[in-house]
């Protein structure tokens, strides 16, 4: 009896059975083996990128939903995306450019401040929506499983669409002012600046979204912190105006320091403060690691406490 079942086993494994049912059974087990899913208590830290890849369509759907809903009931719709940075540029130009006469040569002040606001607005709107994203989607989190990191990440994608539209406006303004720029430096520095922005935003955004689930205080801390951060980032003034060296070091912990500095390097020749740039880039990577680590460590409990 034992022997027979053993033979059957071998037969199944080698797949040489001519019995139709057995072959079906065989193909089924083969397929099943690929699909085996093991549910266990959370253990070692892992990013689980393969799983995120399996769920890639959800990035699209969450982003698509948020974009649709964002502009669905607004009378002006996409016009807001253009208006918002333009109005900020006008106001900053009037108050800081004209009144305080901040020297940003060779760039005209409006271009200078727009180049900073472009990345800054992406950063700040992503951080605010990412921070609240887990709570806003709590009803889904409590009922369906998918890699949770998709939610704060798609907040970035939504803001990225705004960024692209604002970027087109920026290019138009660049042509209007007829600024002499080198194409080469644009191609080198702009992608680099964008990369740093995305890494820093993703890191900080996922960190804050996880923290907000646990400590609701962050819902109030984040918008306030961002307001302060606008003034300690080189958005409306050049980084060179900070007096003391140690002030510079503190401000460079901000990922947006490197991002905005490099973005402007695509527009005008400038000398870099290498140590500061280095600090900023290292801190960007640290934010990313810290954010993803904390998010992955706590996501298992989101459904219990969201």
């Amino acid at each position, binding site marked *: 009896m034992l022997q027979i079942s053993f033979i059957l086993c071998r037969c199944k494994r080698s797949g040489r059975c001519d019995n139709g049912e057995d072959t079906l059974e065989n193909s089924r087990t083969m397929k099943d083996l690929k699909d085996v899913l093991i*549910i266990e208590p959370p253990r070692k830290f892992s990013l689980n990128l393969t799983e995120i890849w399996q769920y890639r369509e959800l990035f699209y759907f969450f982003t698509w939903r948020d974009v649709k809903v964002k502009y669905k009931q607004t009378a002006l719709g996409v016009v807001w995306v253009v208006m918002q940075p333009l109005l900020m540029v006008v106001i900053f130009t009037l108050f800081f450019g004209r009144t305080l006469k901040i020297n940003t040569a060779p760039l005209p002040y409006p271009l200078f401040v727009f180049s900073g606001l472009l990345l800054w607005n992406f950063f700040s709107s992503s951080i605010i929506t990412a921070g609240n994203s887990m709570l806003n989607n709590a009803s889904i989190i409590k009922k369906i499983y998918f890699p949770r990191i998709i939610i704060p990440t798609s907040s970035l994608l939504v803001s990225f669409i705004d960024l692209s539209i604002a970027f087109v406006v920026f290019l138009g303004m660049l042509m209007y002012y007829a600024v002499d720029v080198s194409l080469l430096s644009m191609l080198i520095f702009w992608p680099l600046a964008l990369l740093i922005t995305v890494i820093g935003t993703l890191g900080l955004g996922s960190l804050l979204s996880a923290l907000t689930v646990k400590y609701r205080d962050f819902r109030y801390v984040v918008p306030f912190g961002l307001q302060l951060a606008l003034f300690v980032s080189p958005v409306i003034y050049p980084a060179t105006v900070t007096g003391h060296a140690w002030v510079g070091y503190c401000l460079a912990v901000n990922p947006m320091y490197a991002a905005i500095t490099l973005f402007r390097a695509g527009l005008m020749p400038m000398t870099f403060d290498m140590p500061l740039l280095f600090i900023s880039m290292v801190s960007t990577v640290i934010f990313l690691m810290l954010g993803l680590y904390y998010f992955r460590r706590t996501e298992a409990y989101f459904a219990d406490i969201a």
Partner: protein
Amino acid sequence: MKSILDIEHISKLFLISHQGLPYLSLRERLTGLLRGREKQEPFWALQDISFSVAPGESLGIIGKNGAGKSTLLKILSRITTPTSGRIVSRGRIASLLEVGTGFHLELTGRENIYMNGSILGMRRAEIAASFDQIVDFSGVENFLDTPIKHYSSGMQLRLAFAVAAHLEPEILIIDEVLAVGDAEFQKKCLKKMEDVAGQGRTILFVSHNMDAVTSLCKKGVFLKQGRVEGYGDIHEIVRDYYDETHHNSMTLEKGAVRAIGIVQQDDKLVLSVSYEHDAVIDFPNLGFSIRDMFGHPLAGTNPMKSQVDMRPYKPARAGHIEVVISSPKLMEGTYQLYVWFGDSRRNFFETKDPILFQVTKMSTGQGRNAKLDGYIIPECQWNFF
């Protein structure tokens, strides 16, 4: 045959903090550092749950409220993680824990089908392929491009169920979705689930409706206080469950209400309740609700609502209340009774789990074998001209 789902020694521990809120404010965390950790009470929602499910099997999971059914389903659908143990699944799992997850009111019906489908784990191509069927099943084709905030709740529900019903996972988890919607739609849903079960899909079905469980499932698991109390043939499991539940009566050791009983006397139902309170009650107020096995209320009232004259009653600490319910007349079947007791201002008692009771031949109006619509026997005079 190799099982498709193995549940091995699953346990889940919750730490219940007495402050009530599971999330903290930073201030609490900071003051907590100084004062030492707050005491948290451990609560085992599930303890050492093990069973296997064979491919194509439909398994009913039954148990009272708080027995751990929902926690088990949440672990299976990976919404929350187990504290110990493991589950091996050899197929794609999808859950209908609540239909309509991810519906957004501002989006149109069409957009929500795509959004909801993808959240439930369907690929875009799969949704597109079954799009027409989904629309057909839901019956909302005329409103596809209307934001669903303009839908009636019934339409939203039909659309949501239609999407969920067209999922094609190897293992489908269903939790009480039947408890919603009108009778016709419920029938449609049950039919759909029977089809799904007939296709050789593996189903885990959680419900309080024993009729639905027995018609859909061959095997069952009976959970009690986080443990497996019974596993096997669904009819035996349902019998075990019924033995555990209160039939016709319930006695309590403490609390304001000490005994509740309901019996059928000819064509009337008689509900009797004994109460004993630590203070004198001026105005005892007893409310009852009769529900179907889905939990839908059928009839219910209390002396305040019925404007009963309470003058003959002398205020007392303890007493006995008898309610003779002569109308409505109910169809044959099993019903749930919920009771509430209080005075004009306060609640003293409320049943958590229903008391079940049977009704047989309440009226001659119900013909033999004739399964009439609904639960209430209509009394009418027929005139043919």
